[in-house]
C-alpha cells in the first residue's frame, strides 16, 4: 500500500531544520497539509516564467533545474531530497524562475498556496518556521553569490574587451548557479 501521508520520521530526515523548530502538534498539522505527488523521469514539475500554485518538498529522487528562455536552456543543477521547489511563488505569487524536470522517479509533497495562507492565519508560528527556513536559504545563496558577482564585474571592468559572448555567458552562468544554490 502506498503511504499517502509523509511520515514524521521521513519529514525529520529530509527537513531536519524545520522539524526541529516545530512543536509536535505543529508538525502534525504540517504533515496533514501536504499532498503526495509523483513524477516520472522527464515529467515537468515547473516551467520557467509560469506560475505554480504550490510549494513542493522533495522527499525522494532527483530533478534537473534549468533557466529557460524560449528555445534556449541552461542547466543550473540537480535538486535532491531535502530541497524545495516553488518557494518564490508562495511568497509573492510571481512566476517561477526555473524549469524543473524529474530526472528520475520522484516523490514530492506539495503544499498549495491556499493552504499556506490558511496556515499563516491559523498557525502563525508554523508558517513563521517555514518562512525562517526560506530566509536562511535565500540569505545563504545571495551572500555566496555576492562575492562571485563582484569578482566577475571587476574582471569585466578591468578589461571588458578580452571576453567573447560565450565566455561572458559562462561567467554569469556560474554566478547564477551559485545564486540557485549550486556550487
Amino acid at each position, binding site marked *: 500500500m502506498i503511504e499517502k501521508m509523509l511520515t514524521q520520521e521521513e519529514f525529520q530526515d529530509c527537513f531536519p531544520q524545520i522539524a526541529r523548530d516545530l512543536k509536535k502538534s505543529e508538525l502534525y498539522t504540517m504533515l496533514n497539509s501536504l499532498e503526495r505527488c509523483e513524477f516520472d523521469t522527464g515529467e515537468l514539475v515547473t516551467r520557467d516564467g509560469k506560475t505554480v500554485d504550490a510549494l513542493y518538498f522533495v522527499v525522494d529522487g532527483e530533478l534537473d533545474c534549468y*533557466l529557460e*528562455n524560449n528555445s*534556449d536552456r*541552461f542547466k543550473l543543477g540537480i535538486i535532491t531530497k531535502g530541497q524545495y521547489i516553488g*518557494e*518564490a511563488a508562495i*511568497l*509573492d505569487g*510571481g512566476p517561477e*524562475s526555473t524549469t524543473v524536470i524529474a530526472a528520475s522517479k520522484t516523490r514530492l509533497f506539495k503544499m498549495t498556496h491556499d493552504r499556506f495562507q490558511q496556515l*499563516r492565519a491559523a498557525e*502563525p*508560528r508554523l*508558517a*513563521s518556521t517555514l*518562512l*525562517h527556513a*526560506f*530566509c536562511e536559504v*535565500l*540569505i545563504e*545563496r*545571495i*551572500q555566496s*553569490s*555576492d*562575492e562571485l*558577482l*563582484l*569578482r566577475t*564585474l*571587476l*574582471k*569585466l*571592468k*578591468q578589461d*571588458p574587451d578580452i571576453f*567573447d*559572448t560565450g565566455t*561572458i*555567458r559562462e561567467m*554569469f*552562468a556560474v*554566478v*547564477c548557479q551559485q*545564486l*540557485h544554490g549550486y556550487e
Partner: protein
Amino acid sequence: MDLGEFLRSIPDFDGLTDDDLTVLEKAMVIKSHDDGHVFFSQGSRSDNVYLILEGEVSVKRHINKQIAALRLKQMHRGELFGLYSLITGRRHEATCEAVGPVKTASLPGPAFKLLYDMHSPLTHHFQYIVTRQLMQDYRSLVGLLRNIIFSSDADEARNYIDMTKTRYLGSVELSETDAQKALASLLAGKKTT
C-alpha cells in the same frame, strides 16, 4: 499624516488587525536622521527595526573593506530594515545608511523580542514581509543575470552588464588600479570583512 495613518496605508501591513497596528504605533519611536547617518554597520549586532517614513536608505555589503562594496539596493518610504538580524540574533549582513535626510519610525529590539516571544501575529507578519523582501532581491538579481546569460549578441550582453554594474557597484567609479587591487585581493581570498 500621523504614524497610525501611515502604518494603515502600507500595503505590506494589510493583513494586520487594527489592534496590532495600534500596538505597533505605540511602541515605535519617530526620529529624523541626517544624510550619511549609519543606522547600523555590517557585522554589528541589531538593536532596532526601522520603518522608513521619509527619504531613502542605501544597503551596501562590503566584500573588500578598502575598496569594493556591492550596493545591494536602495530602500524607500514604507519599507522595513534591520529585521532579519533581530529575528535570528545574527550580526548584520550589510550596512544601512541614509541617502539624504531620512525620517524613520523604529521599534526597539527589546519591544520586538517581547512581541516575538509572545508569538504576536505582528512579528509573524514581519517575518513574512522580510522573507518577501529577500525574495524580491533574489528575483531581481536572477533577472539581471538571466538577461546577460540569454543575450542574443555581445552588444546586448554588454548593455546588461553595464546595468548590473550600475545597480551593484553604484555610481562610484573604480580606478583601474583600485579595480586591480580589489580583484587581486579577492582572487587571493583575502576577505577583509
